[in-house]
């Protein structure tokens, strides 16, 4: 069995943890299925890594296998959030931190661009108001 062409033996042997749950390979298959669904139907998929039992070290092993691709963005929103496209295009790793830089959530999203990375309509509206105010203030001064 392979996940994205990776032999299962490679996946298992690179897990450094002592008692593996066996959830790592099914997780990679879930990602593979989601990628197929995105290509065929355009369906997006989100996996909450906190909802899956993983042994110590297994999550690190998963992240290692997903690797880093072409995009690495850091958001500054009530504590940082890292949005990383993995080495598999359309497989995004999203890690939310609190203000003390402790992880408060970690998701894998299968989509073109994660929603949180896009500019949001409410924020665009507020930004437009700020720009208009700035221009009208400048005109008044002139």
């Amino acid at each position, binding site marked *: 069995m392979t996940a994205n062409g990776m032999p299962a033996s490679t996946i298992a042997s690179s897990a450094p943890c*002592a*008692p593996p749950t*066996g959830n790592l390979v099914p997780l990679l298959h879930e990602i593979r299925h989601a990628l197929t669904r995105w290509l065929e139907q355009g369906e997006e998929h989100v996996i909450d890594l*906190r909802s899956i039992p993983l042994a110590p070290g297994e999550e690190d092993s998963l992240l290692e296998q997903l690797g880093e691709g072409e995009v690495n963005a850091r*958001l500054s929103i009530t504590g940082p959030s890292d949005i990383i496209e993995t080495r598999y295009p359309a497989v995004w790793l999203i890690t939310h931190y609190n203000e003390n830089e402790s992880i*408060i*959530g970690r998701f894998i999203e299968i989509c073109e661009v994660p*929603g949180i990375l896009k500019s949001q309509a409410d*924020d665009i509206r*507020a930004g437009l108001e700020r720009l208009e105010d700035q221009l009208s203030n400048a005109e008044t001064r002139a």
Partner: protein
Amino acid sequence: MSKDKTLGETLQERGVSRRSFLKFCATTASMMALPPAMIPVIAATLEKLRRPSVIWLSFQECTGCTESLTRSHSATIEDLIFDTISLDYHHTLQAASGSAAEHAREEAMQENYGNYILVVDGSIPGENNGYSTIAGISNKAMLLEVAAGAAAIVAVGSCAAFGGIPKADPNPTGAVSVSDLIKDKPIVNIPGCPPIPAVITGVLVQFLTFGLPELDQLGRPAAFYGNSIHDRCYRRPFYDKGLFADSFDDEGAKKGWCLFKLGCKGPTTYNACATTKWNDGTSFPIEAGHPCLGCSEPDFWDAGSFYKALSTPTEDIGKTAVYAGAAGLIAGAALGASLRARKQSAVKNHERVTIDDLDQES
């Protein structure tokens, strides 16, 4: 934040970006063990939410539940207090004391009668007021008075939910749980000694977002107490292979094998420790090498030693199975029935087997 404004309006006024709000909703959904598809629903509901008043009463307790809550890392207590709820009365956290504190409680009750949420930690002693009073009011009288005007009650910790340590045999104070005294209000039990902080805040946010959550037969939210520790434990594969630690320092313990024989109550304990974990998701007791004590189950203090294995049927399964094979399906069904009956009897009589007994069987 004004109680009249919605959370969405307040966040906008404060200049909190939509992205920040989406992040809050995503981490909240994760904390509530909800599928990620629910994130937009949470966002839409929380946005329209007006801060409800919360009154927190502490009775016969050790303050461990509040200690746990204040160490919640996701959706911090600050977020919860200032953005989502209006915590109008809490002995330990409020600045006011004495009659000023009691006045705050009375005022919150009067202003929000019928609509506030009552949170209780600690069990309630019997008729003797000497065991526990607040401002000269017995715990029972205060609970009955405040519960009368509450929209719903959240019993935090095993003491409030099931009586906990104060109720342990011989129960010197005649301690009872909230649900022993209140019968006419919806009650959500969040047991644990203490409960996982993220579960306390998660249930409160879930309650505010979706109303009364789905509860199990012990009044616990299914989202957090729906699976046994055993079913979600990363050591489960070792149980299935029959690989157990026999002592805390043998080879099995060092290899991280199953702690069942050392008294782990994971198979009969329902809680989110194995997935949500403790200390900012760092670990949980089994991961630290200690058996689960079963602290989110009723009367766990009186359920025998923490270090004795759970009761198991003593039937010689191998031998009976041979007969079953020879006699066909009817005997097979009889084996199942016999084992079930033996197990039920063992559970009923609180029989326990020792590690030595298990060794003899294997």
